[in-house]
């Protein structure tokens, strides 16, 4: 059993007829994922790369026993797509779609959590367990099977770091991109919890960014609950203060949210923090 998904998950790709949906459904299948169906309202009956397409997730669940969804539907239709998946009984949903309105994300995430559905994203690259399965858009070539668990807010930066690990023969158990939007279904803590339990994962890499307080909360959690070694990188040490921060942001943050605050919190939790991404494999090697 890998973290969240493995080769047994039966994946339906929502929005399979688009460029991304079509490309990545094949890439997922080639990685080992059991892609059983796609959906596109009004296009039911066709096939995309040999994958049957249905009008609704319900049909994919009833006819193909889909239990996992990967959503590529553009932002305006994303909430509908995600709630359709929840309503149809899908238990794990990876939302790749970007630019999802934050109030839509709040609704998706709160409904998902009230029904016990795991939601990853929105605006996330998804997750991959080399040798088992991937759900999302992470480039397959960068991975190497191994025992490092990677959890990250970022997309391409995650690829950069996974690639650096692989070049140093530091293989990965599971890599989860939780997405960098302000509201996401899965947090660092959710994934850290799974990595701690997962018998394959021996060491953990956490990739964060400035803004929000998720890294500080993760640090607090690590200090209390994580026994496996953790190495972190926080992007944005030298970035300008975020443009989103008005008064409300400052009131909420109360000094948290900066790179310094995050790094300090992580170091207090005995996490080694890399200064630049290429330092991550070095620090990990020393653990």
């Amino acid at each position, binding site marked *: 059993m890998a973290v969240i998904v493995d080769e047994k998950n039966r994946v339906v790709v929502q929005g399979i007829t688009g460029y991304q949906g079509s490309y990545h459904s094949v890439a997922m299948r080639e990685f080992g994922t059991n892609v059983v169906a796609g959906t596109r309202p009004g296009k039911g009956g066709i096939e995309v790369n040999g994958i049957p397409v249905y009008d609704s997730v319900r049909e994919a669940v009833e006819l193909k026993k889909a239990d996992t969804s990967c959503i590529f539907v553009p932002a305006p239709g994303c909430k509908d797509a995600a709630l359709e998946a929840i309503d149809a009984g899908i238990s794990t949903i990876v939302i790749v779609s970007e630019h999802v309105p934050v*109030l839509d994300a709040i609704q998706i995430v709160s409904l998902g959590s009230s029904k016990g559905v795991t939601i990853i994203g929105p605006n996330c690259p998804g997750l991959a367990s080399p040798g088992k399965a991937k759900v999302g858009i992470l480039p397959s070539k960068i991975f190497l099977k191994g025992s490092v668990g990677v959890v990250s807010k*970022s997309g*391409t930066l995650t690829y950069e770091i996974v690639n650096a690990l692989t070049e140093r023969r530091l293989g990965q158990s599971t890599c989860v991109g939780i997405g960098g939007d302000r509201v996401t279904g899965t947090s660092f803590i959710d994934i850290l919890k799974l990595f701690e339990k997962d018998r394959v994962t021996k060491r953990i890499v956490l990739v964060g960014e400035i803004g929000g307080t998720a890294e500080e909360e993760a640090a607090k959690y690590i200090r209390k609950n994580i026994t496996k070694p953790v190495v972190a990188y926080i992007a944005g*040490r030298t970035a300008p203060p975020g443009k989103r921060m*008005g008064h409300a942001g400052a009131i*909420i943050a109360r000094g948290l949210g900066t790179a310094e605050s995050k790094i300090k919190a992580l170091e207090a939790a005995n996490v080694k923090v890399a200064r*630049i*991404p290429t330092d991550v494999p070095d620090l990990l090697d020393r653990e």
Partner: protein
Amino acid sequence: MKLFEYMAKAVLRKHGIPVPDGFVVSSADQIRKIPGPVMVKAQVLIGGRGKAGGIKPAETVDEARRVAASILGMKIRGFTTKEVLVEQRLDVARELYLGITIDRSNRSLLIMASPDGGIDIESVPEDRMLMLPLDPLMGYQPFVGRRVAAFLGQPPEQSSQIASICHRLHELAVYEDAELAEINPLVVTKDGKVVAGDAKVTIDSDALFRHKEYENLPEDLTPLEQKAKQLDIAFVQLEGNIGVIANGAGLTMATLDSINMFGGKAGVFLDLGGTDDPEKVKKAVLLMAEANPKVILLNIFGGITKCDTVAKGVIEANLEKQIAVPFVARIKGVNEEIARDMLRDEGMIPASGLSEAAELASKESLR
């Protein structure tokens, strides 16, 4: 996207929240009559207007014109004042604070309230600030407004006005997709009315597809920022001289961090988002050329597209507009060797890793 104060107040009014009478003008002679004593307020999308002299009182039409003329055109922390709001002056008894925004940790909307409204709101002690996340499944319910009003500790008559404003502010956030709607100060007037003295409203730009009314609002953008916005590229102007193009916010920030490690300083940076679309890369290169950096650093981590295809886009951009400054290019992914050779042939400086690229660019920038 941030709304100017007068627009924010129009949105408040639309949702039934009391605001002072007023109007906006772009030249002093547009002021014909005023509703008694007024404040003339610079309309800029930056805080600290008052301290900068951008908010001034006036008693008569003539005075209002004089004051308006002195404020119009004023530079406030880098922003030029193009319009002023001429607004009925409130007879202030108390200044409160009320806001609604996104609570990342609770994944919900968050109501914030304090009895100590006004300019120093950020330094109000925690026990004087109510932070009330709203259960998204429950939405707003009357008990929330009662709780907020109780925290603000006003007499019953004002409490019921506050509860009603709180309700409407939540409605505003939901209907307008506001990621921030803030009333500071929320004024209790000497005759017992509760009125929004100032207002900040930020509309979630990801939700503009369902709010066409906000699509063409004026924004304070430079021509380059405007161009970048049209291309859906994040454009940020910093202090340094290295122009950075990367794909993805995290990777862009990591590129800045790496440059900094090697002594360089980033100037303009462009973030393409998570894409490696060659066409978008090409347009970003052309845009960067217009920004005149001393060195350009391109850092693309390829997902779907092959590196040589991306390199071809870069070279086409270079053909279209000869780039005279050193160009360090790192494109990672399938066929990266081919891409590197292509770029070298074109007189660019190929790099294979992020550190190497940052080091090369920093060196070039320090020459």
